[in-house]
Each structure stands twice: as structure tokens, then as C-alpha cells.
């Protein structure tokens, strides 16, 4: 993926640069707001990562200007600003995701991947299928190997999310935000306990579909065919 990083802290930029290159991404760095905006408007990016507090021009203005030019490129704020209104402000400015520093690299990578693929997905699907697991979004039914699986509403949403993002890592925080709309860090293993139940319901004895990615999150993927 072609990524643009607008970040004034050299150390953080180097850390991200190194990690993302390892993920076969192509990254360009802009170290102040004005350069950043020029690069961003220049186009050709699949995801733009923006700091909020930047020299010359702040991140919010960059995103607002970019959106005013009609650009739809996914933008992720990566910022130290964690006030109760900061997140809403960032999203209202036109960003697609908001990640607060300090962050875990795995979290950033997962979110970039999710943003990058977002445009490829059509939201009008009525049917999801991964290996022998099928989900009908119209009558809200799930079958594994043609056998019906009874799920509670929240488990259904969790599975739907995992299936829509087949082959992608979804972190605990992403799932909390998107499945439960929880924008805080609960002290309880909510995601873990739900995934565990889901695995039970999908059949422990069958090949595992939901995989734990150590240090990152979960991924739903068809078992490797040999």
C-alpha cells in the first residue's frame, strides 16, 4: 500500500517507517503540516496517517482542506490528544479512524489494513461465506457445514465483523469500538469471552476458523488447505 505519514516527531516517524516497510507498505514522510497537505492533495495514497499537532498547519486543518477538495482517501489520526471531545472533533473533521499515542504497532498496522481495504468492500452483500461457514444477513442465520448455529445478537455482530474482514487482524480495541460501541478500555475480558463462546458454538472439534494473533487480536480465516 502507498501510505503518507505526516508526523513531526522523528523518532516516532522512524519507528513507524521501519515497521510498515516490514509489512511491504510504501511510506512517504512529511515532517510539517504544510508539506503534509501538499503531499496529501497530490494524491495517489491509499491511507494517510496524520498527527494532530504539527508545525505550520495542524492536522485538523489538513484533513478539512483535503476533504474540501473532494478527496475520499482514508485518513487516520495518530495523536497524543485524548480529550473527551478530541476524538469526536477528529472524526467530524473528516478522518476515518482515531488512534491515540502511545500505541502498539500491531494496533496501527491492523487499523491501516482495515482502512486500506475498506473501499474494496461493497456493503450491499447479503451473504457471507468463509470455508464451510455461511452467514445470511437477511434472515440473520448462520450455518456451519450446513448445520444451523444459534447465536445471540452480539455474537452475530461479532462474527459478521470477523467474516467481513476475513484474513485481516482485528484488534481487541477495534472490536470493542465496532461491535459494542465501547470507546473506553473495560477492565473485563469482554472480547475474549465472546470469542471463546463463538468458537464453542462454531464447533471446537472442527477446524478452527477464528485465530488468535498473538499480541494483536483475532482473525477469521479459512483453514489452510493442504
Amino acid at each position: 500500500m502507498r501510505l503518507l505519514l505526516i508526523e513531526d516527531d522523528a523518532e516516532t516517524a522512524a519507528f513507524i517507517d521501519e515497521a510498515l516497510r516490514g509489512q511491504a507498505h510504501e511510506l512517504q514522510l512529511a515532517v510539517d503540516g504544510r508539506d503534509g497537505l501538499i503531499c496529501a492533495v497530490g494524491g495517489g495514497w491509499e491511507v494517510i496517517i496524520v498527527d494532530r499537532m504539527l508545525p505550520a498547519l495542524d492536522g485538523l486543518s489538513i484533513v478539512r482542506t483535503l476533504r474540501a477538495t473532494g478527496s475520499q482517501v482514508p485518513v487516520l489520526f495518530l495523536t497524543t490528544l485524548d480529550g473527551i471531545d478530541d476524538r469526536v472533533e477528529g472524526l467530524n473533521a473528516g478522518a476515518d479512524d482515531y488512534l491515540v499515542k502511545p500505541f502498539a504497532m500491531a494496533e496501527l498496522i491492523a487499523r491501516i489494513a482495515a482502512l486500506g481495504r475498506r473501499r474494496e468492500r461493497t456493503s450491499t452483500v447479503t451473504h457471507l461465506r468463509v470455508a464451510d461457514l455461511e452467514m445470511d444477513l437477511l434472515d440473520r442465520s448462520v450455518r456451519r457445514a450446513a448445520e444451523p448455529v444459534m447465536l445471540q445478537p452480539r455474537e452475530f455482530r461479532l462474527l459478521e465483523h470477523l467474516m467481513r474482514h476475513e484474513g485481516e487482524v482485528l484488534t481487541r480495541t477495534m472490536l470493542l469500538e465496532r461491535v459494542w460501541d465501547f470507546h473506553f478500555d473495560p477492565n473485563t475480558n469482554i472480547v475474549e469471552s465472546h470469542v471463546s463462546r463463538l468458537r464453542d458454538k462454531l464447533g471446537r472439534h472442527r477446524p478452527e476458523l477464528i485465530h488468535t494473533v498473538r499480541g494483536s487480536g483475532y482473525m477469521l480465516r479459512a483453514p489452510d488447505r493442504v
Partner: protein
Amino acid sequence: MSDTTAEAVAGRGRARRLIGSSLFRLMLLYAGLFSLSVMVLFVVIGITTDGFMTRQIDATVANEVAEVRADAGGDDPVRLRDVVHGLVQTSPGFYYLLQDRTGHVLAGNMSAIHPTPGQRSLERSHRQYASARDAPLLGDGVILPDGSYLFVGSSAGARREMRLSLLRAFAWSLGIIVMLGLGGGLLMSMLVLRRIEAISRAIRTIMGGNLSQRIPVGGSDDEFDHLSDGLNRMLDRIETLVGSMRQISNDIAHDLRTPLTRLRQRLELAHRDATGALAEQLDAALTYLDGILATFTSLLRISQIEARIREEDFTDVALTPLVQTLIEAYGPTAEAQQQTLTADLRDDLMVRGDSHLLTQLLANLVENALRHTPVGSHVSIGGTRCTGGIVVTVADDGPGIPADQHDFVLGRFARLDASRSTPGSGLGLSLVKAVAGLHGASLELMDNQPGLLCQLLFRKP
């Protein structure tokens, strides 16, 4: 309620406010005091004039007695009788009496009286053609050398007239003073009340969260303008303080988060390259760091919520779906600990607020109820409407919190000894309290007998 009844009720309310206003009461008091002083004034004037008129009459009659005797050229009864006879015809303002020592009237236009010498007042009329309306007589008598008695009197009618007119004047002035006092009081209270209400209206919007709103200044440079001006300056100051408070937490957040970000990145890089025991150490270090960050975030968040008075981005939050999400989220956890988690909620409960913060508030309470109670306990969320507003409760049947610790556990980092071994930082209930405060809801911890019952009362706006 129809418009007219609403108006009538509003009008009645306004009238009651007007009459109940301290200014109106002050005006009443003032009018009362003023009437009292007018009364004192009238009494003084009355007494003075009365005395003056009495003295005047006394002098006149004494004079007349002397003149009668002078006209008679001595105290010869026959000459005196003639003089008195003549005077009765020519001096209509006076009353004369000449009686001999036996009390037999010799001349004059009066009936006989007891012969007392000197100045005297005759209450009962002794005039010849007396009528009930007659005023008393003031007069002067002398006992002549031969024992006969000469008396000259004058009617005190003028004095009575004067007293009456003074009384009438007093009654009128009193009436006018009371009317003016009441009317003026009402008018002034109305004027003053209007300005005070403008000020309190402005204060209410400011309390509602609009810190940039200012109190209107009339421009007449009176004490109300001075008051508004003072309040406005105070508001300027508060606004700056709140602003700099926000700025400070932003600065702290930024200035601490930047080095912490670098620290975390270094640890992560080192962790990626490490193996064996070192990797384990670094893993633990990362976990601790994330714990510190979580505490730091919670602390900042609590003080931000406490400093916030913005209600403008509040929305109507339906409680049922919110509680349903919580039940679903924490259900598996409860089940794993053989606890039950249930909700009993009226399904049309709406609260004005921030749904993210309200979710976190209830999540903290549910987490506490699941975490600080033993295996097999029951946790229930309730919600009803009551006269004061909407009541939301989270109750468990665990060990509870002793009543004397209820205030303590709401403080930052406060944990009971029994919870030392469970994970947590003691900030959960502080956040609950801050969010409740932001929503104008009262938070009360109660004994559930057994267990803890946390009750939130969202008052009607």
C-alpha cells in the same frame, strides 16, 4: 394545558413573585414607617394648635371680664346688670352670666352655674338655647365683693372644628400615602424584578454550559449595571481559568505522552528482537507501561469531565438499548463466574446526556458488581420513572460497602482492604461520580441487604 390557562398560571406566578419579592416587602415597610411618622406629625400639630387656641380663648375671655367690670365702672350689681344686658345684644361671640349670691341669674344668656372663680371649661352647655351639637364653653369667672358671680365664656367650637379638619386631613394623607406606597412598591418591584430576572436568566444559561454568554448591561450605569459588570468580569476570569485548565491538561497530555510514546516504541522494538528471559521481562514491562497509561488516561479523563459544563452536545439517550448492550457484553463474564446479570427496565426511559460516557458509567458499576462479589452472586440493573425524574440502579448481593466507607470509595484511588488482591486502580467510582455530576444526576450508594446498591437519579430538566 391550553394557552390561556398557561398564561394565567404564568401571570399568577409572576404576581406571586412580585408580591413575594424582597423589594416589595421593603416598600411596604417603608410606607408603614412613613404613615407612622405622618401620624406623629399630625398628633404634634394637633396638640400645639389646640393649646394655642385654648390659650387664645382664655386670654380673650379674661380680657372681656375685665372690660365688663371697667364698663360698669366698678362692681355695682345694677350697673353690671345693665352692661351685661347691653353686651348680650351687641357681642354675639360671647356668653355672659351675672348671678347673685343665691344663684339667681341677674343678666346674661346662660343658666346658673356653680360660682367657681378663675378660668374654667364647661363641658355641659349652660347657654340659654342649648343644642346637643354645641361645643363646650371656655370662660373666666369672678366672685364680686357682694358675693354675686360674673362669668364670660366663649365657645370652643372653633377648636373642635380645627381638630376635626386636622383629623380629616390626616385620614386623607394616610390613604394617599398607603396607595402611593403600594402602587410605587409594585411598580418599583416590577422594574427591579425585571432586571434581576434578566440577570438570573443569563446566569442560568451560563450554568447550562455556555461559558461565553455574558449578562446584559443596561447602559444606565446604575447599581445593576455595576453588579452585571462585576459578574461579567468574574465570568471572564472563570472562562480563562477553565480555558487554561483545559490547556494545562492538554499540555500534560501532550508533554507526557510524547516521551511515553517513545518509551513504548523502544520497548516494543527491543521486545521484537529479544528472546527468552529478556523477552519475558520486556513483555512484563510493556504490560506495566500500558497499566500506567490506562491510569493516566482515566485520571485525565475524570478531571476533564469534572471541569466540563458543556451540555450543548448532549443528546437524548435511550437507556434500554444501552443497558441491553451492557448485559450482552458482560453476560459471558458473569456466566463464567456463575453470577447472574439481569435487567429490569421500563423501555421508554430517556436521559439527556453523552451516550459514550453513560455507557462507561454503567459499565463501571456492572464491572464492580461482578468483580467485588463472590461466585454465585446476582447482579441486576433497574430503571424506573419517579416523581423526581428517572432512577437507575445497579445492585448486587455481595459483601457490599460499609456505610461509613460510602464517601471514601468515591474518591480517587480509593479501594477497600478486601479488594487489594483484585485488579483495579480505584478510579472506577470516581469516574462514575464525575459522569453523574456532568449529567446533573445524584449518585447514592446504599445497603442492598446484603450487597451494594448504586442509585442514580436523573432529575427532570
